[in-house]
């Protein structure tokens, strides 16, 4: 994936040490050497710069003659944007930023996109700033179900980037049959060929729903004890091949997995080239999640953040992102715009859920601090690490 390379100076003046440290960070950004030198020389982008650290493969890229959203945004707004993809895992990212934000220091990105529950944690800890929503006219395009959500009750700290569902992804060449239910993941026929996500809420969410537990109202660990037992037993029996993050797709495509817990957009992105890779929202229900944009505490480039939010909440622009990543868009009017680009996609219930699909999607209740800790401990002791 190509990234914008004209990331000039962001804040000026820099001390030498800051430069050394930051040049490392820019390495993530894929900044070219000339850009680094330019940064060294100064020449203020000032508050007109923006660094967005997002999950990988989560935006329409600039390649093969396509112009990506980041390029169109820089063109339209004049903001000097750096888009990085080092957000790989909620817990891991949290562990990385905790020593800095916990000590009252800034982190480099102006914007990150943690999953809703992690955003809720950051908001509770006071480690994020309020978004400059008064400067974002397009906030009116936010889908109604994301207005003042449980993780951000006042709606001042977060704006969803994309939403989606975790369900069952499978390789029909290996399974030899269509899968419909979470129970299929525990089918002994697939022993050692099942993958689970390290994202606790997605893996446990599916198992809980298959046991009939309502995750929208769950509030104590006891309610989930049965599901954890089922997972523990499956692990001990060798049913589960691995717990992974984004890399589950490798194993699915190469046939190491028969089936796994996966995310809708990932499978859809594989597209027509891989008709053997399927995605299904299980009969018992799939989880509904959102990754939301928040500003880590101390961000100075609020104007640029406002411009970016305004840009991606324009349905026409959001449609470009959606037609590439194929997750649920939190922006009103995207479906009509997508229909202009790709009519078939606009009718796909895994991108724009119909009533029947939507009825099977559930999102997690906000867990209290202590309960969240219990869930996390129990899950990490099963993943075996």
């Amino acid at each position, binding site marked *: 994936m190509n*990234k914008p390379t004209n990331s000039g100076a962001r804040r000026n003046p820099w001390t030498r040490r800051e430069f050394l440290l930051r040049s*490392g960070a820019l390495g993530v950004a894929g900044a*070219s050497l000339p850009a680094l030198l330019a940064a060294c020389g100064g020449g203020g982008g000032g508050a007109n710069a923006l660094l967005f650290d997002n999950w990988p493969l989560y935006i329409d890229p600039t390649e093969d003659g396509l112009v990506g959203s980041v390029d169109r945004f820089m063109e339209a707004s004049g903001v000097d944007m750096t888009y990085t993809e080092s957000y790989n895992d909620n817990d891991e990212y949290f562990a990385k930023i905790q020593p800095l934000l916990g000590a009252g220091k800034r*982190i480099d990105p102006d914007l990150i996109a943690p999953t809703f529950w992690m955003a809720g944690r950051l908001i509770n800890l006071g480690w994020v700033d309020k978004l400059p929503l008064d400067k974002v006219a397009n906030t009116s395009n936010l889908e109604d179900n994301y207005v003042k959500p449980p993780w951000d009750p006042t709606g001042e700290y977060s704006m969803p980037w994309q939403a989606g569902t975790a369900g069952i992804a499978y390789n029909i060449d290996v399974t030899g049959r269509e899968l419909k239910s979470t129970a299929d993941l525990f089918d002994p026929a697939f022993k050692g060929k099942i993958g689970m996500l390290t994202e606790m809420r997605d893996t446990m969410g599916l198992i809980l729903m298959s046991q009939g537990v309502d995750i929208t109202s769950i509030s104590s660990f006891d309610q989930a004890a049965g599901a954890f037992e089922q997972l523990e037993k499956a692990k001990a029996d060798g049913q589960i091949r691995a717990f992974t993050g984004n890399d589950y797709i490798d194993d699915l495509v190469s046939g190491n997995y028969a089936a796994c817990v996966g995310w809708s957009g990932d499978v859809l992105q594989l*597209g027509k080239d*891989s008709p053997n890779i399927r995605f299904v929202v299980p009969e018992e229900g799939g989880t509904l999640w959102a990754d939301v944009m928040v500003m880590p505490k101390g961000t100075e480039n609020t104007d640029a953040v406002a411009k970016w939010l305004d840009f991606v909440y324009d349905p026409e622009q959001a449609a470009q992102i959606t037609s590439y990543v194929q997750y649920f868009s939190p922006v009103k009017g995207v479906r009509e715009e997508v229909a202009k680009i790709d009519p078939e996609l606009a009718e796909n219930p895994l991108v724009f859920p119909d009533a029947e699909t939507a009825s099977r999607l559930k999102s997690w209740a906000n867990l209290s601090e202590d309960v969240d800790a219990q869930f996390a401990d129990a899950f990490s002791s099963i993943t075996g690490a």
Partner: protein
Amino acid sequence: MNSLRSRIGRMGLNVFAGLGLVYLFMPIFFIVLFSFNKPKGNYNIVWQEFTLDNWLDPFSQSSLTAALWVSLRISALATVISTIFGSLIALALSRRSFKGSSVINLLLVLPLTTPEIVLGSSLATLFLSQTFVDFGFITVVIAHVMFQVSFVALTVRARIRGFDWTLEQAAADLGAKPWRTFRYVTFPLILPGVLAAALLAFALSIDDFIITFFNAGSTVTFPLQIYGAARVRIPPQINVLASMVLFFSIALLVIGAVRGQRSEAVKAMKRSKNK
């Protein structure tokens, strides 16, 4: 009969060693092979079709190239510092035994007998508990120097163990100032050992993953970039860059071997003349 058995034994051993070499090169073969793959979508894991595209554009992955550049700078800086520090220790240790040398020997060996994960995590706890440096370029350099110093000191010491220190004495007796003695006597003698140690230190540093992983913060070195990529997609350019390093080292080896053979040949000629 006996000789037949021993001949079979010899053959068997040679075959085993040959198989050992095949085993060593198995993953290498795949790394090179997949550098010519034209991956379908994001994942370079299933062989699709032959292409030269990746080789024609090895630096198209800007984040990968940037990470390689970060790694080179870190390793170069760390190697210079550790080579100086380590060689000085080796010089001190090799002269004569002095008070405390056994404790110092122990201190040098300890980082080698400590698993990397302990070195990395313990250093991380040190950096966490202070406010002077944030995790990043500097902390990685510090970490690398820390484990390199021992390697350099022990390698240089092993290389200069047989060094005839009376030469230094002679130079001094002839009226050479200590600096001149060092510059014209000591330094040329220890130089090969120092260079070998620096190479080793550089190799250890540029491929270090575990210790770096704990102390890098948001700095991304080449191994860290690969680790990150492995969780999303591994672009064939990674294989290309790895193959390049590989071919480069093979070329060096072949050149070295040819030159070695030539000097062997020269020696053999001289021997035959003497006869």
